[in-house]
């Protein structure tokens, strides 16, 4: 059980520190100058997800495959008696891989929606000033996903990452599934 891999324990320590620090710091900085981000990998590529746009992150949740017309739809997962459809983020971003994603993030809003990705790198707080090209303009090229799912980049140690906009990903799923988008907008900070 001891550190088979030092990097994991380091990361755990770092996460723990981040977590503790988040309590130590005054609340104002959350909303004003910082963004809580999950740094993830989907289909081998690095991305970031705004924590505020999600309502939970879960590892190794069993997903019951559902045969149907959408390859991006991995299947159904159970959450406290509710049945939640789970989509493969890499496939939604147009670079599907064969490997089955291990993690899933529950998208905020209704109806319930899970988005699966392969690896969770960590949880970081980024200064708003580190977000570049926020709410990506049209005509931008690099790495924009289908339906404008990627909105902006965040500069982080180890390189910049495109930010996956969960409401946009949800809108894409709604379009794929032929489901009318709910009129009430997501809380999008």
């Amino acid at each position, binding site marked *: 059980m001891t550190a088979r891999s030092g990097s994991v324990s380091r990361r755990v320590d770092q996460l723990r520190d981040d977590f503790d620090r988040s309590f130590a710091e005054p609340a104002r900085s959350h909303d004003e100058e910082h963004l809580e981000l999950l740094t993830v990998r989907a289909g081998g590529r690095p991305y970031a997800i705004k924590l505020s746009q999600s309502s939970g992150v879960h590892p190794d949740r*069993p997903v*019951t*495959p*559902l*045969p*149907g*017309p*959408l390859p991006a*739809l991995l*299947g*159904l*997962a*159970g959450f*406290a*008696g*509710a*049945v*939640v*459809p789970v989509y493969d983020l890499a496939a939604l971003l147009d670079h599907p891989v064969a490997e089955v994603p291990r993690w899933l993030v529950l998208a905020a809003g209704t*109806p*319930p*929606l899970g988005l699966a990705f392969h690896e969770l790198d960590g949880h970081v707080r980024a200064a708003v000033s580190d977000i570049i090209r926020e709410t990506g303009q049209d005509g931008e090229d690099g790495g924009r996903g289908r339906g404008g799912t990627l909105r902006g980049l965040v500069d982080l140690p180890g390189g910049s990452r495109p930010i996956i906009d969960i409401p946009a990903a949800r809108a894409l*799923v*709604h379009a794929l*599934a*032929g*489901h009318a988008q709910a009129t009430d907008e997501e809380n999008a900070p």
Partner: protein
Amino acid sequence: MCHSVQSVMTRDPLRYFRIEAKELVDQISAGVLDLDQQPEADVVARLLRFAHTLKGAARVVRQQEIADRAHEFEEVLVPHRDESTPALPADQMRELLRLNDEISGFVTALSAPAPPVAEPAPAEPEEPIRTVPLNAPTTQAEVDQAHVDAELARGADAASDRPERAATADLDDLLDAIGEASSRIAPLRDGGRTLNRLHRNVETLGERMRVGRTTVSDASARTSVRRLAGELGALGRRLTDAVDQVERELDEVRGRAEGLRLVPAGSIFTALRRAVRDAAEAEGKPVRFQASGADVRMGPHLLNLISGAYLHVVRNAVVHGIEPEKQRIAAGKPVEGTVAVHVERRGRYAEFRCADDGRGFDLAALRRTAEERGLLAPGLDPGPQGLIDLVLHGGISTAPGVTEVAGRGIGMDVVRDVALQLGGEVSIANRPGQGATVRLIVPLTLLSMNGLIVEAAGTTTTMPLDAVRRCVRLGPDEVATATATARLAHEREVLPFLPLAQALRVPAGEEPRSGVAVVLTADRDTVAIGVDRLAGISTLVARPLPDLAPAAPVIGSVSIDLDGNPRLVLDAHGLVAEARQESTTARGDAAAAARPRMPILVVDDSLTTRMLERSILESAGYEVDLAASGEEGLERARSRRYGLYLTDIDMPGIDGFTFVARTRADPQLAHVPAILVSSRASAEDRRRGAEAGASAYVVKGEFNQEELLTHIRRLIL
């Protein structure tokens, strides 16, 4: 305990009376209608008993109004107690219905608002809620208003007293299941005690080691540790078993509790029957009401809405559908009209049908109204169904004045609205002069069903048990053949065969393995679905697939398994359709060599017949081998795989019956269907053919190329 019961009683003295009175009123309402339709002595006796019980109970809780009316009700019936066939004059019958309604109104009012603490329940509701018109209605508007009232009453009714009406048997089952689950806790408690003991032992051992009296090299210490390990292992297994059992029991509890939320469709039949009765009385037409499918269970909300809409439908059927007596006699119909309501579960949908044997929709009048309303360009002919659809699309009912057509339109508007609200569909089948059927299909949100749990290619799914006809074990060869040909010979018929793994789009194992064919029937079609194994039967609550999860039509709904994970529930209609389609595709593709069509063996001693049959078959695209005798036929049959045998009966040597029987007896050949072709046409010969195991029997005298090919298409692998 005593105290709390006492306080409940003082706070709400009517609590138990409400339950009892509600039940009695239901029984009285149904009884009165029974009496109206089929006057029998025991119905009178039964009604007297109910009314008397109600009177007594109402007096105890000082519900004088109810007691008085129950008494009056008795008074009407007493003179008829000893009649072998009670003959109540119409006015007495109306009086019974009136009293029934009043009692029902009072009882409903008791349940509607929860009486506030320390304040006596209002003795007289401000405005008694009427469930049906008190008097024969004279205008359409009046009737419609009465139906609105009835709907309101029913809504209040459902909101207030559904839990009280849960069938006692269901509650008993639930209590049993809870009891069973509780009893499974005992082993866990024992396990807890054992765990404490082991914990103490470990601590003692640790203490001895700490003070140095024992070292790990000590033989007794090693023995202790080994023993502890063994006991811990055993305890772990016991706990796992116990938890498994508790889980299973809790699952059962949950299934039953969810089932309690559902109410049987039959609970709306009395109201429908009453609406038919009242309309029939008002119209002066004798009408019989029939209902079936009372046991189909669904959510109370859904049933309420449908009940409201169907009140209009059945009423419409009487008022606008059923003809006056004279016309019926002239049309050669029974004097008494029939309105039949049928409820059926179809997959995760419920189907409500209301059929009458009246005149059907008046298409000419419909067309006139539609043209007047500008819904239809003059001279345009939308066809009969097109006209009927106009009724469903609304607009017809907006015609000025209450006309025959508009009246029907209003009723259909309500049904259409309900269908829309519930995400369902409504359709009308019109049979001019013969009657009409209004069909409403609505999706069920929660659905209690029995499922057959099956496994295929590592996936566990559930099949609706009520669609399963039987299960047939298949050897590895049979699985391979059935899969390759998309057909399975079963009980002298060839069924489309669909491996479930294929339907679920999961790769099947490459090794041919034995399996099970589940024979399913839906939409009057039967197919076989191949699975790896059966894993039991369970009661489950199926829910619709979530939004954002479009699925293949073979998936009907989803349930939650013991671990909280979704499990797919297959849709029988979808499976049948897919198996049928795959099977057809397999045949259609045969020429394209993906699945080569298997050859046919023709056995006949007559050269002419052999050649004739060969030319027919070859021109239909089959490959044909010929044999001139039964013996030669058997030899060929064993040397090559055929899709079908076509054999004559009268041949030198072994005859056709024997040929068929021998191939049936040979495990290698038994699955190949055989058709007997003979000039013998007697029933006895057909019977012998069937006994020998022939799949079809074609008489040469009436030899019909198409008929033969139809048989072959049905049968060939």
